[in-house]
């Protein structure tokens, strides 16, 4: 089954998130207080390496396993939408100290309270779906 390979990449992701300490509520507070370079180092390195990899994949016309070219569907630029959505997300991120990826990872570590955070995230997702026509996009 193909999904097994995605499961395996997920395991790698969970280990990287844990050992990088990016899942730590304390690291997130430290980041937003500018008291350590750690999180900026992680995100910066990840972006630079990923950008180089994607640039190289496009440059050398590397095909994906499904035979397609490496591409990205750009979003329509909307300043109010991106700023508002980003700010709402940021409020939650700094409060619970974890973004969606780390939520799953922390659950695996036995922090069961994060299950409630995920319930909240599902409610938030559903609420957006219900009121999206009334929001600036």
């Amino acid at each position: 089954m193909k999904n097994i390979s995605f499961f395996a990449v997920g395991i790698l992701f969970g280990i990287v998130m844990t050992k990088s300490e990016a899942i730590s509520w304390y690291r997130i507070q430290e980041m937003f207080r500018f008291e350590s370079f750690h999180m900026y180092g992680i995100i910066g390195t990840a972006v630079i390496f990923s950008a180089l990899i994607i640039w190289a994949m496009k440059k050398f016309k590397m095909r994906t396993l499904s035979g397609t070219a490496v591409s990205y569907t750009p979003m329509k630029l909307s300043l109010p939408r991106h700023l508002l959505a980003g700010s709402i997300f940021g409020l939650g991120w700094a409060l619970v100290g974890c973004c969606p990826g780390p939520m799953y990872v922390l659950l695996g570590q036995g922090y069961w309270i994060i299950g409630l955070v995920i319930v909240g995230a599902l409610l938030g997702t559903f609420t957006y779906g219900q009121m999206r026509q009334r929001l600036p996009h």
Partner: protein
Amino acid sequence: MELISQPQGFLAFLSQPWHWAASGAGIALVVFLLTWMGRSFGVSTSFKAICAAAGAGKRNEFFNINLKDEFWRIAFVLGGVVGGFIGAHLLTSPEPVAISQSTVEYLASVGVDYPGSDAQNLGFVPTSVFNFGSLKGLLMALAGGFLVGFGARYGDGCTSGHAISGLAHLQLPSLITVIGFFIGGLFMAHLVLPWLLAL
């Protein structure tokens, strides 16, 4: 004579906290693998997929998606759960997360002891604040999750989709979204959270 209690060799090497550059490279490896496998790195869409699986598509066409296209993402996040277990319990760091002294002092000033506030002593989640026995903690967990879920869907992506994938594809909308993450995050971390913790 000293007793050797720590695991030795490669496992011990992996069990140390990773340098930020190694961590960033690890994330980039995940981005590469997912891109090579014909997908893109994005975690928050799994929330939409779970809503759809729970039947939200019957009430709202936004959730009317082909679930088969999302199986890979569910497999990926379930892998994340297992990876978290391995990372924390089989590759346990010898010490709790080494946050900076000034953060420790700030946390103490708002009543959060470090690392004592994490019952697992890993330095990951302040369970003294977020636990099932505290109404305030329950509400904070639920509200924080709600904001993350709502904001991620409204902005069509979270840290993985925008801050990593989007920036790596040099997307301006992603950069603006990341600026938003910091507007909201700084406001919460500096103004709201200290007040909430002191309540």
